[in-house]
């Protein structure tokens, strides 16, 4: 089978998919839902086998539970302060730790002000199945970039991991709303979305629109956004 055939190929856990993969000496990237056993590749999640040029394969599956992975950006809720660390709930099996020094410009004397219940947008530095995940709010250059504590005047809501992936997809037309609405959005890979607009009405409208996108295709999202923009202009 050619690679284009892998699109729409439904797999269930245990299916051997080695025959769908590229032949040749090139290295192949196996994404989530795929597992290698010796020289064979098996699906370990049910879903649709996807391929992205040049050499990436993964299983597109429905997921609501967040499994922390290294380098993912997540929204965490501070649940505890323990000496040098904050305990942060990121929706995984156990809370992550966030050092109070892992913020831009933070020193032992100049601490970041974070209270229990505050939100942080952070990156997962380590995520292994045997240890608690570790978060940081700075990149390799020591800059906060887009990370850091989130303001208290936003609205946080939860959604499935699929929806997050859909919203973060470069082809997603939802961004077009930004040309008409002033808003700020933070999308965490752990299925949490933080939204901030000037009015309660637009916050509700946008959050409903995002949640409604869950089972829509990109073209349907486009029409929904156009409707929303029209209604906003009329009101």
């Amino acid at each position: 089978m050619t690679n284009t055939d892998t699109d729409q190929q439904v797999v269930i856990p245990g299916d051997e998919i080695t025959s769908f993969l590229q032949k040749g000496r090139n290295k192949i990237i196996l994404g989530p839902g795929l597992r290698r056993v010796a020289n064979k590749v098996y699906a370990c999640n049910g879903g649709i086998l996807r391929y992205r040029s040049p050499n990436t394969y993964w299983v597109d599956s429905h997921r609501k539970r967040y499994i922390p992975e290294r380098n993912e950006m997540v929204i965490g809720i501070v649940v505890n302060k323990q000496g040098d660390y904050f305990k942060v709930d990121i929706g995984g099996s156990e809370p992550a730790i966030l050092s109070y020094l892992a913020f831009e410009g933070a020193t032992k004397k100049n601490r970041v002000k974070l209270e229990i219940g505050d939100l942080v947008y952070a990156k997962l530095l380590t995520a292994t199945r045997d240890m608690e995940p570790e978060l940081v709010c700075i990149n390799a250059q020591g800059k906060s970039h887009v990370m850091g504590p989130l303001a208290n005047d936003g609205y946080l809501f939860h959604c499935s991991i699929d929806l997050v992936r859909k919203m973060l997809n470069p082809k997603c037309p939802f961004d077009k709303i930004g040309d008409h609405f002033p808003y700020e959005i933070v999308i965490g890979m752990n299925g949490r979305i933080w939204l901030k607009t000037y009015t309660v009405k637009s916050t509700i409208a946008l959050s409903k629109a995002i949640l409604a996108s869950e089972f829509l295709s990109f073209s349907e999202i486009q029409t929904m956004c156009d409707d929303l923009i029209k209604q906003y202009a009329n009101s």
Partner: protein
Amino acid sequence: MIRSGKDGKKLSKHLLEMKFMKVSRDRIQEEEDEQNSQALFYNQISDALKSSSSKFIVEPSWVVCEGLKCGRRSYRGMNPVIEKIMEMDNQDQKVLTKVKEEDVDVTAEEMAVLYKQEATLIESTVRSCNKRTGSTLSPPSTKKKFLKPADD
């Protein structure tokens, strides 16, 4: 301490002990440590692990696989700091793609046009040459003899 250098040659113990050889000394030490550790664990690696080394790279995150965007965005002045970062990232992206496009000095289209021009030019010159000499395109068949230089 006598170790092999990059080209397989060995440096003498006394030379390595000199002050200015610190970098080489450190490198050689590092290489030696690595060799030792490899030798230590080599028999613990199963044959399957050695042979099936790595045709596959496992990437457990969707972010890399699907090429997902940065999750924080701001529009129309809601958070100017974020908008500035977004703009800078966009510019970086543009520069990157531009660099990729400009990686070749002459694009394929330009090359095709150039070849066409060149071909007609060569054709016309050859034709004019042939007209002048009255010869065909075939190369001269006479083989040149080696001329021995005269002895002085």
